[in-house]
């Protein structure tokens, strides 16, 4: 194998010699290519390796299986959720065999107990989830976008190198830690005094503190995704705006952000769906009361915190409160998937293309 490449090189050098009078001689060429001429014998044993075509194909097939595993995972998720909610194999009763879809979607009471007392309306859980996610967005959208603009438009490279790890650390702190922070610090030390000053009553478990920490958690996501799209806005756009007498505010808000708007919107949506799926912080700080309310000062149960609550309870595996996990799981999966798909669609559809 070596000698083939070598002989090509040799040929080129020989051609060179034809053109140039004082080109390298035959022996010099051999020295330069550093190879034994083809005719002199076989390649040394180490250089010869039989490669079986089948072996190669086998490896590729194995790698393909690895990649296909992700499709299998999605299929399994859908199958498991639908399987146990719509039609359960074996002796178990599927959730929607016992509760009608209409009652599930429109009911305003959530009381997952067996027997006639059970009420299965998703509205209370949905309102809790959306409340937490909206509070989280109110925190994270201005903070994340502001941080993205600051890091891409204002910060010096050194400052940016210092700030970026800070955001990465904030993103890497586990959810339980934020839950603890909300329950034991934000609620008693910040929100209670502040709201007490305004004369408002705040529960120990409340959606407000949960929403705030979830907002803190998703801020780095918005910041880094938005910063990426903002940085991809070409420099010429900024320079043109400065040349027309714009201030930095004008450049950031009227030129750069509109140019990157699709990416920023996609980042917001992604963060919103992350906030909806956020579990441990909400479980710890948000409380476990499924009430259809939009009052963030009270405890609220989200879809995720219900799932944790139901699975830590001591109800039997085939009880309806267990089976309701699958129904809520479908709702959660469908909502987050829809938002993610919309986010991806916005990114593709409205991307500004620059040369």
């Amino acid at each position, binding site marked *: 194998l070596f000698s083939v*490449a070598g002989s090509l090189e040799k040929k080129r050098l020989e051609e060179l010699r034809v053109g140039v009078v004082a080109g390298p001689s035959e022996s010099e060429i051999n020295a330069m290519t550093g190879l034994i001429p083809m005719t002199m014998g076989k390649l040394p044993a180490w250089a010869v390796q039989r490669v079986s075509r089948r*072996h*190669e194909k086998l490896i*590729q097939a194995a*790698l*393909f299986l*690895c*990649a296909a*595993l*992700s*499709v299998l*995972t*999605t299929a399994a*998720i859908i199958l*498991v959720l639908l399987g146990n909610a719509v039609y359960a194999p074996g002796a178990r009763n599927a959730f929607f065999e016992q509760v009608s879809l209409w009652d599930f979607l429109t009911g305003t009471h959530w009381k997952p107990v067996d027997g006639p007392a059970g009420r299965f309306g998703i509205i209370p859980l949905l309102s809790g989830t959306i409340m937490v996610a909206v509070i989280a967005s109110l*925190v994270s959208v*201005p*903070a994340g976008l*502001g*941080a993205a*603009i*600051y*890091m891409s438009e*204002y910060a010096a490279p050194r400052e940016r190198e210092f*700030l970026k790890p*800070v*955001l990465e650390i904030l993103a*890497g*702190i*586990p*959810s*339980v*830690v934020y839950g*603890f*922070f909300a329950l*034991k*610090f934000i609620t008693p030390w910040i929100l209670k005094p502040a709201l007490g000053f305004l004369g408002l009553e705040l529960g120990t478990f409340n959606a407000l503190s949960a929403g705030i920490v979830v907002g803190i958690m998703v801020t780095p996501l918005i*910041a880094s995704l938005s910063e990426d799209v903002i940085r991809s806005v070409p420099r010429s756009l900024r320079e043109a705006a400065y040349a027309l007498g714009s*201030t*930095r*505010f*004008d450049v*950031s808000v009227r030129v750069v952000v509109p140019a990157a708007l699709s990416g920023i919107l996609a980042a917001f949506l992604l963060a919103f769906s992350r906030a*909806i*799926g956020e*579990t441990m912080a909400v*479980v*710890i700080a948000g409380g476990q009361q499924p009430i259809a309310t939009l009052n963030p000062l009270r405890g609220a149960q989200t879809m*995720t915190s219900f799932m*944790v609550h139901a*699975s830590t309870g001591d109800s039997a595996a085939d009880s309806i409160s267990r089976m309701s*996990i*699958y129904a809520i*799981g479908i709702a*959660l*999966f469908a909502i*987050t*998937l829809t938002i*993610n*798909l919309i986010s991806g669609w916005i990114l593709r559809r409205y991307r500004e293309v620059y040369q």
Partner: protein
Amino acid sequence: MSEPHPPAEPKVAEPKVAEPKTAEPKTARPKVSFISGGDRYIRNRLMLSRVFAWLCRFATYSALAILVVLLAAIIYSSLGRLSPDFVTNTNSTSPIKAGILAGLWGSFWLILFTAMFSVPVGVGSAVYLEEIAKDNMLVRIIKVNLANLAGVPSIVYGILGYTVFRTSAAAIAELFDGKHVIGVLGLFKVRLSKLPIYEDNILVGALTLTLVILPTVIAASQEALRSVPGSIRVASLALGATRWQTIWRQVIPAALPGISTGVILSTSRAIGEAAPLIMLGALTYTSMCPGGIESPLELLTRPSKLMQAPLDQFTAMPIEIYDWSKQPDARFTAVAASGIVVLLVVLLSINSVAMIVRHFASRRLKW
């Protein structure tokens, strides 16, 4: 933190009125200082710009402030309990005695097996998608699917793990309860020995966590593979290497620092994951380390326990922290905070390994 940006509208209307005004005095007054001069419109605009810059700076630095406050609050709360015996004790109902040893070992085993499952599959998928796959329908489906899997809440994987992995483990456990007899080829019968397999064992937890982090591992490995210059592949192929030889001997070694950094970072995410494990029914209260191994020395001295550990029940650090946080007894606050300190120290040390790898790799490789 939640201040909105100053709206852009108020100043929009002004220029039409202000501009002719500013144009006239220019001829009369030769010196126009934009900062201190009488030009109100420009001064307002500059002011707005400066206020906006400060708001953005405030938003960015509030992240730093929150991080500092968070760490300070946790360390302050942990002062009552954090001591060496917190790391050597297992859980207890008494806040004075409760320690994190069982969670530490549980997390160790979980991460060991999660890494063992997710690294080959994750890197393999990335290699397939980046190096081998042609752009056909199937590959596009896989890519779209991966992007969507990354956005699935981790608790949903917990449901999957509970239904699929835990049920399978329960079936296997039932098979090995010491009562089942199976016939081998109709020739003789074998009574299956009794094995201590639990349905909520470490392997079930690790498989579930593998599914949680797999999209991240794949994305990180893809990123690393993409940063290997094409010339390396072309050179290797031109020398007659096959595609797999090129991948195995050139591309993967060149991408290894990037891959290992990404893999370490995404595996460290799994350490903090509690939701899927709780869905599996991992024990919130246990004082037992998997396999009964309580010190690193026992890993070497008692090999029989090693075999048992993966099939044992477990708890993990974030689960214990969750359990302590929701205890009504206020003294458990310090216990939970101490647990968080240990968890963060573990995370920090793992991440610093990744940083070191990245640092040395970026010094060595130059292209």
